[in-house]
């Protein structure tokens, strides 16, 4: 099977509109992505490489537009590479529950615009959302609302299938 992290990086490159394809390899048992960098030593790690690509594409706003939002972006990037790896059902429930509360009054994970945190969290949480029943999707309604927003964002989805997360009921209830 193709390495998930490498597919996420390839999709990110397309989203960023990077023309020159980068060369990647992996290292270790966990198949950590490695970017062969012409101008220096190789870069190791999904988050590190993703931040590098954002800089290469000259889209610094994707890393946050203030020291505070940059810290929040980094926090969710770390969360997505550490917490979403765990495979117990209990752990994924906690992730969904906490994100659901966090996203209650938010459109994006950090600040008022899309950031790299939304993109990598979307890639990382995709398998969890795929496993949810319709009832569970309603239970985590803030997460699924955020997820649906990000998956329909122009050119982010690429390697992943669209997941139908919202039932019509939610739309019709708006028109009372």
């Amino acid at each position, binding site marked *: *099977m*193709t*390495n*998930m*992290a490498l597919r996420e990086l390839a999709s990110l490159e397309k989203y960023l509109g990077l023309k020159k394809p980068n060369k990647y390899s992996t290292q270790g048992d*966990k*198949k*950590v992505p490695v970017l062969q960098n012409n101008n220096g030593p190789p*870069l*190791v*790690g*999904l*988050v*590190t490489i993703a*931040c*590098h690509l954002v800089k290469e594409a000259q889209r610094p706003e994707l890393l946050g537009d203030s*020291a*505070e939002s*940059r*810290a*929040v972006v*980094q*926090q969710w990037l*770390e*969360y997505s*590479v*550490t917490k*979403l*790896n*765990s*495979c*117990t059902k209990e752990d994924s429930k*906690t992730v969904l*529950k*906490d994100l659901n*509360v*966090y996203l*209650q009054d938010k459109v994006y994970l950090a600040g008022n615009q899309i950031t790299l945190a939304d993109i990598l969290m979307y890639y990382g949480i995709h*398998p969890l959302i*795929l496993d949810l029943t319709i009832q569970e999707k309603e239970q985590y309604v803030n997460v699924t609302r955020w997820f649906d927003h990000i998956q329909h964002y122009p050119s982010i989805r690429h*390697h*992943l*299938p669209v997941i139908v997360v919202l039932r019509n009921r939610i739309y019709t209830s708006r028109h009372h």
Partner: protein
Amino acid sequence: MKLFISEGNPHCLKVLSALGVTGVQCDVQCVNHEERVVPFLSRPAVPALLLPNGLYLFSSNAICRYLFEVNGQESSELCNQWLEWEATDLQPALLQALHMAVLQGKGSEVSKVLQSPLNFLDQSLGKGNTPYLTGEAVSVADIVLWAALYPVLSESSLALGEGKSMKAWFDRIAAMHSCQSAAQKVLQGKGLQGMKSYMQRQPAPHSNQCRETQPCNSN
């Protein structure tokens, strides 16, 4: 801005050291391990930093990075790489090691668990040939890794830290006054035993990581 910490929590050693090294002004409040500081998390998460904009940071690495950035030291790509390694590779091994040493009395087996990340750190420091991880000056990566490793490397009974380059690096940072006083404040001079009540409240570590084996329905 307000920083919440608890005694005996190794992640608090990171943020207190970073606070001391950067000299950023911030209220510090000591809470107990059960305190739910961050409203949206179902498990207690300390340390936590309440930002001026009302948002909470609950990742110790993100807090340290923020303190350094506020102090005018933005983290470099090499710094980013060390911080990611610390969170994804070192922490799972450390959690397992501390679980063994603090709760199970299996201190003699700790070196097996930590050998690979410690070797990696020692070799990188040896190859880099600079006093600190990312160059000639201390960076957020040094503080985070030093604090993460302090509980195990300062415990001579665990017999770790034979790597020459790592030992020199570790002692260089341990000599900084801010780091010493942070260690005293968090561990109270009690070493590993100072972490017992914190470790008892942590979920038992599961060693297998299986992102790659998760079912993937595309293609």
